[in-house]
């Protein structure tokens, strides 16, 4: 059948609608490459078999991709009279159950992702409502497509048919409005009008460059010549970009229709070509089939649609070189030559394929063309931002919950893409950056999350739209490593024609590799910048001109990552193998070689494990309870599953097999040294110094040693007797701890200077910072840290019935949970941002919620309501998150007129604390935040011989960091006292010992999968007492958990061996 008029199109449309809605159950299986990779073909086969077996009258078809690649295989079930339901993760073993449900007219809510009650045809703006007359209440729990976070805010123009139709079915394509536009254009519009429309629409090339499509067409249209060509560039070589593939696999006709319209507009087109890499065999097959179909319907070949227009489309198979995506290289490739770029001008629109004027557009650009001509330029230009019109398809990949394809209007904030559609980062980690535009683009940090994503804004930020890949990275990403990865890609893909790209990139990579091995030198970054800008400015084609972007943007936005590698030999993302050993070891503030003891636990050698633990710290028990375990956030196992429960393993081995431990002491009474403050920093320092043989005296103002461990942390998290036991261990090392002695009051500071050769100040940060709210001095209003001290130290036993806490820190949660245990009935935490931002440990928040504490997000206190000096309540206002502030935090904006009041008996503020430095004489430098200044490399203050560490230096931080400070200070105090060099030195993290890995049996590999979560005391019990909430792992669980460790330190050793043998 040849199509020559609207009548025949209508007929085709009718058959298409019948095929889409066959009057019986239609099941479509998402069979794009993403689906197939997840077993979609087997699922489809199983569905057909199953339906036959069950005697069901079912049509099973394949379809394109809705974009939710994470949930593939997607199965789209369409029962006449009911809403259309899309199920996710339908693997082969779920097919039978699904079929049974379909047969019974049930819906499996747990598997259903969303439902559709109708569909919207973009081309015609037609809304087709499905017959849902029989759709009963069972569908109410399945959210409509528009309400699913992933789809909310999407507008699918280029991907308008993907997932809805069978990809190579022309009928179904026409049923959704296809080909009508082509007919309209060919019969009623002049080529100039078509070009005008595309110009007016503001469509810009989606391949990355963003050149106005209409302008390109106009140049080619006006170029002299009786032979012209058009090309569709379907080369997609970016790591992480697959939108073109998805469009061609889901809806090839939209691209072909766009090309025919383009050919008509440009005029004199003899041939059109589609370049597809050989890595897309399915795309190639679909294209060949679709082109043949169009020919048979008279939509291609001679006399297209009976209008006399004649040309053909050829599918050219590429070899997959990345550079062939560059248009001049692509032209050479089609001509049969080596695919290397040539200088422009002349631009292909003037002299392209075989020297003829040639239009090259990207798949997505072509797919947009029919929509623009169907709905008009005004409609299209009403979507998007000022300089970038329409929508853009992005592939969201990387460390993100929902990987997949989304199409959003230009100008959508980056935050929406990452957090709304992408669902954010896994719970273990924080967002670090997003690489836009693949290896040609740049890496944008959190502070740029609010930029609207369009051509111009991305360029301004130093990145680019590129093909539209968005690689989201969490904090376990090293920017040096990232730049290294992309550079090694572009280096490999460089064609080698021009000097800067060919020679410059490998040298840049070499320098980066050196930096990541910990051999970076001063001047490397300047050299990198110099080379990078040089390559960018001087390369011949787009590949070289953009290849330094990942490096240059990360150097710009994450310079501290690079500096940290070079200067401190630390990889902030714990990725660079040669300097990290294992990430857990690398990140540990006290330098605990975790993989070492985990390995011993896995082998059942608990004594050895204990030895390793005690090597690092005198407070393993305390750490095993309250350490914020940065190690677990970086754990390599966490890349593929949940991280190892490192802290819980430590606690297991200490509590089940622990014993008192005193390491050997160093030689004799070297000198007298004083430590001020018996908190974690001070005691750590004292212990290390005592081990070295110094005679150490610790002065503590409180009556009990322990500092903030004792006063700030509730007993249900850290038992008092545990603190006492480990402090006792410090005493056993020969440290003299004098409690109840306040420096500056009981002992003058100058006496200390006189009597001791060196001092370590670790007095912590115990002074709460007020909120500066009216009424803050009312009775019942208190700083949370004071409240905790009263409970923990002074034995306070009472609190009001209604307790409010302002702030989202761990201290806030501690105060809330303590109040709950003291009998408060209604405890509410008020936090001004959302659960994304709350600084408290997620598990702490969850535990609080379990215990019946309310957490109210997005509210800010306005004033404290007091009556006669007594607290009555708190007035708050609602807050909305808008944009991102310069530090990368989303900015809370207080909404006027949204005041609401809560009645309270007690209000605790937990915003921040600062040190009390009143005891110090003048002459010490203090930071703007009120902390004492000390060299972070040696912990020495500006006054020689006086060292400082812990919260007094860092502001309120974690106990583990404080202990790290103490250890570091001890090392340099020793060096100071021996008259050594005080230049800080930094070393690479290397395994401290060699432990054979445990080899899992095949059965264990299958069964030991999940993280062993620490058992908790039942909620009903625990809110009545201050007993430990977290319990100890069972031995079997602990050993299994240790076996899960991937032993990434082993790879370090292995590589070291390899390097030596080389």
């Amino acid at each position, binding site marked *: 059948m040849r199509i020559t008029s609207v009548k025949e199109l209508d007929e085709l449309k009718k058959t298409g609608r019948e095929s889409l809605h066959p009057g019986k159950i239609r099941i479509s299986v998402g069979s794009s490459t993403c689906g197939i990779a997840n077993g979609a073909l087997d699922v489809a086969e199983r569905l057909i078999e199953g339906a036959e077996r069950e005697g069901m009258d079912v049509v099973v078809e394949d379809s394109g991709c809705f974009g939710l690649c994470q949930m593939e295989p997607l199965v789209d079930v369409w029962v006449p009279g009911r809403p259309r339901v899309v199920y996710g993760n339908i693997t082969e073993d779920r097919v039978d159950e699904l079929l049974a449900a379909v047969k019974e007219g049930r819906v499996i809510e747990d598997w259903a992702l969303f439902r559709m009650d109708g569909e919207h045809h973009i081309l015609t703006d037609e809304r087709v409502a499905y017959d849902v007359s029989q759709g009963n209440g069972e569908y109410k729990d399945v959210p409509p497509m528009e309400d699913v976070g992933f789809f909310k805010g999407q507008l699918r123009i280029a991907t308008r048919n993907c997932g809805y139709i069978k990809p190579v079915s022309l009928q179904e394509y026409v049923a959704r409005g296809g080909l009508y536009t082509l007919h309209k254009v060919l019969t009623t519009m002049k080529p100039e009008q078509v070009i005008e429309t595309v110009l007016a629409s503001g469509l810009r090339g989606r391949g990355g460059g963003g050149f106005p499509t209409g302008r390109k067409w106009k140049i080619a249209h006006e170029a002299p010549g009786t032979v012209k060509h058009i090309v569709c560039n379907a080369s997609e070589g970016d790591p992480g970009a697959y939108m073109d593939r998805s469009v061609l696999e889901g809806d090839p006709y939209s691209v072909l229709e766009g090309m025919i319209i383009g050919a008509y507009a440009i005029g004199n087109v003899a041939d059109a070509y589609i370049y597809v890499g050989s890595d897309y065999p399915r795309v190639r097959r679909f294209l060949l089939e679709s082109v043949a179909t169009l020919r048979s319907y008279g939509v291609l070949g001679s006399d297209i649609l009976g209008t006399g227009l004649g040309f053909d489309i050829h599918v050219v198979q590429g070899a997959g*070189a990345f*550079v062939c995506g560059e248009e001049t290289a692509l032209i050479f490739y089609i001509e049969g030559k*080596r695919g290397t770029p*040539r*200088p422009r*001008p002349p631009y292909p629109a003037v002299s392209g394929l075989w020297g003829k004027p040639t239009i090259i557009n990207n798949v997505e650009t072509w797919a947009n063309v029919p929509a623009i001509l169907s709905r008009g330029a005004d409609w299209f230009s009403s979507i998007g931002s000022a300089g970038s019109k329409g929508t853009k398809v992005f592939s969201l990949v990387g460390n993100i919950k929902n990987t997949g394809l989304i199409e959003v209007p230009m100008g959508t904030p980056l935050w929406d893409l990452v957090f709304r559609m992408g669902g954010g980062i896994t719970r273990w980690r924080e967002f670090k950056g997003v690489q836009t535009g693949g290896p040609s683009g740049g890496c944008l940090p959190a502070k740029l999350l609010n930029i609207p994503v369009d051509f111009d804004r991305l360029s301004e930020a130093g990145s680019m739209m590129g093909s539209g890949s968005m690689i989201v990275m969490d904090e376990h990403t090293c920017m040096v490593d990232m730049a290294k990865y992309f550079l090694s890609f572009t*280096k*490999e*893909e*460089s*064609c*080698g*024609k*021009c*000097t*800067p790209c*060919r*020679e*410059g*990139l*490998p*040298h840049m990579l*070499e320098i980066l590799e050196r930096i990541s091995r910990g051999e970076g030198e001063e001047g490397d970054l300047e050299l990198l910048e*110099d*080379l990078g800008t*040089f390559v960018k*400015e*001087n*390369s*011949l084609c787009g590949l070289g001109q953009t290849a330094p972007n990942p490096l240059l943007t990360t150097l710009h936005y994450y310079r501290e990552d690079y500096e940290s590698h070079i200067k401190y030999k630390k990889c902030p993302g714990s990725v660079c193998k040669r300097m990290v050993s294992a990430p857990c070891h690398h990140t540990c503030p006290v330098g605990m070689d975790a993989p070492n003891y985990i390995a011993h636990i896995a082998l059942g050698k608990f004594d050895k494990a204990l030895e390793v633990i005690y090597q690092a710290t005198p407070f393993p028990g305390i750490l095993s309870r309250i350490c914020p375990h940065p190690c677990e956030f970086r754990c390599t196992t966490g890349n593929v599953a949940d991280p190892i429960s490192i802290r819980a393993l430590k606690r297991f081995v200490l509590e089940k097999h622990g014993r008192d431990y005193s390491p050997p002491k160093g030689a004799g009474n070297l000198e007298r040294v004083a430590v001020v403050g018996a908190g974690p920093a001070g005691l750590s320092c004292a212990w290390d110094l005592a081990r070295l043989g110094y005679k150490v005296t610790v002065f503590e103002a409180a009556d009990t040693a322990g500092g903030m461990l004792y006063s700030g942390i509730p007993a249900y998290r850290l038992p008092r007797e545990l603190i006492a036991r480990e402090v006792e261990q410090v005493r056993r090392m020969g440290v003299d701890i004098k409690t109840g002695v306040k420096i500056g009051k009981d002992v003058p500071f100058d006496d200390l200077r006189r009597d001791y050769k060196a001092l370590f100040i670790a007095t912590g940060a115990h002074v709460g910072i007020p909120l500066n709210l009216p009424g803050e001095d009312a009775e019942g209003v208190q700083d949370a840290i004071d409240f905790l001290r009263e409970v923990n130290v002074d034995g306070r036993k009472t609190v009001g019935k209604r307790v409010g806490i302002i702030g989202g820190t761990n201290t806030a949660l501690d105060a809330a949970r303590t109040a709950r245990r003291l009998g408060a009935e209604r405890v509410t935490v008020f936090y001004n941002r959302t659960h994304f931002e709350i600084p408290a440990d997620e598990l702490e928040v969850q535990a609080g919620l379990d215990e019946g504490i309310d957490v109210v997000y997005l509210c800010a206190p306005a004033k404290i309501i007091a009556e006669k000096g007594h607290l009555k309540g708190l007035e708050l206002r609602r807050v909305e998150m808008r944009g991102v502030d310069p530090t990368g935090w989303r900015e809370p904006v207080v909404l006027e007129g949204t005041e609401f009041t809560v009645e309270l008996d007690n209000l605790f503020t937990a915003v921040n604390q600062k040190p009390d430095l009143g005891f110090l004489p003048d002459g010490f430098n203090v930071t703007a935040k009120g902390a004492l200044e000390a060299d972070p490399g040696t912990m020495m203050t500006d006054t020689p011989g006086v060292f400082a560490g812990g919260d007094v230096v860092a502001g309120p931080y974690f106990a583990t960091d404080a202990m790290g400070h103490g250890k570091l200070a001890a090392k340099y105090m020793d060096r100071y006292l021996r008259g050594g060099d005080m230049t800080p030195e930094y070393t690479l993290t290397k395994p401290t010992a060699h432990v054979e890995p445990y080899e899992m049996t095949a059965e264990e590999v299958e069964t030991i999968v999940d993280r062993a979560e620490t058992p908790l005391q039942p909620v009903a019990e625990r809110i009545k007492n201050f007993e430990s909430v977290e319990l100890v792992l069972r031995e079997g669980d602990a050993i299994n958990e240790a076996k899960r460790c991937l032993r990434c330190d082993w790879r370090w050793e292995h590589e070291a061996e390899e390097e030596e043998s080389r």
Partner: protein
Amino acid sequence: MVKLTIDGQNVEVEEGTTVLAAARALEIDIPTLCYSDFLEPYSGCRLCTVKVGRGDDAKLTTSCNLVATDGMDVVTGDSDVLRARKLILELLLAKAPSVERLQELGAEYGADPKRFGEPDEEALENRCILCGLCTRICQERVKAFAIAVNERGQRSYVSAPYDALSPDCIACGSCSSICPTGSAKVYDRYDRKVIHPELSLASNSAVRFVTKQMVPNVPTVYEDDCIHFRQSASGNAVDACRICEEACGKEAVNLDSADEEVQLDVGTIIVATGMQVFDPSVIPALGYRRLPNVITGMEFEFMARADGVTGGHIELEDGRTPEAIAIVHCVGSRDERFHTYCSRVCCMYSLKFAHLVKEHTDAEVYNFYIDMRAFGKGYEEFYKRLLSEGVHFIRGKAAEVTQVGDGLMVIAEDTLLGTNREVPVDMVILSTALEARTDAEEIRHVVGIGCGSQGFFQEMHPKLAPVATTTDGVFIAGACQGPKDIPDSVAQGAAAAAEALSLIGQGQVAIEPITAVIDEDLCSGCKYCIQNCPYTAISFDVEKKVSVVNSVLCKGCGTCVAGCPSGASRQRHYSDTQIYAELGGMLNL
């Protein structure tokens, strides 16, 4: 015309001119590595980078491909440009630190050759900077497509496809000649370098002066060596190369000019086709083409020429200066196996060679001769002078040349001493005979003259008519008549010219009154007469199937008359009857 500014100078150039060309016209130096006037701009090395535009819009771009447009503002040497060039040179120096051109440019632009570390061994040996000139000339000009850049990125290297011996390579040497660093070289399949400018006895160029003395002194395109003709003759490519046409500013080269047949009406013809030199490779014992450093006199001439490939130095194939040279006389002449005659010139040119060797080197020279024929004016004195210069003369024909170690050994009988001599030398020069051209037979037939037994053209009379031939109006001059030296050839040429002029001066020619005529009725068409006629005066009329005599050419010698079996050929004024009557009258019968 397009007006633009380069470094503040206004310049007007033709439309389509590149910025590089415009700058060079202003004598502004822009360095290039990958640019050639005869290839498409490549923009690969990026060294010709300039800055276009001012202020924020200024952009670095390569000038070799940039077509000048109106109002363009170009800066060729500000700090940005110099910084870019310096970095390019630093990168290239890291890749190929031994390349002299890079070292020079590097010094000029202050590039630090060790900015990217100490070069490793591989880099030190590498000379290729991937400028692509060799592959492009092979593809764009030679159209052989024999070599290309393989692999990509930094691993790129130039080679034939699959690194195999390329069947497409025509060993033209374009690649090695265009290579700016000496990286591209052509080897044969036995790893022998084919193009070796250090020692080659013939010019490599297809466009060349055979000798500097040739008249008119213009170069010639040799089709056998020319890429254009070779490629089209082999059917590989049409319109290959043509670089000479483009390079010639005067449009003097036209490769499309073809052979054509020209018909000229002339009254006289002077044949001066010369001789050829005997090919000594047919005497295996002498080792020519078999042993190194055995060369002919002609090849020695090429070598000793001041404008020759060695610049006049006498060198062995490996570039050494020889310490002993043998000159073997009478190679092919005075030899029963080849030519029995004396070639006349060999003794004297051998003496000249000996003199040249002595002049240029300290080598010992051994002449192996049968006897010394110094026949001309001053020749004997030259011989005497050489004797006093210490040249060795060994009377005896060289029997064999063998290889001994690196050198050669000449074996000969010394007829004066009556012993065999074995003389070690480094080089053997064969004084080859002069012989008739192999195509002399063809020419003989065209102009209708005779040949002697040695193949040289036969003069009418060795003493009385040395330049005339038996055919009226055809004269011979020079060595086509027999071996002779230059003075003799010149004299003969002058004589032939005088003879021809004398004919032209007469304005008309007298023909013989007595000629043969063939009676058509009696002629049986046996063609005996045609074979017999020494003047090619008889031809065959195909239609009538009878022989016909051209009375202008016929000298009335009567050979045909005597030979005609059917008595059809008769002598005018000398019929049998007349002869018998004359005889009768004389004898009073």
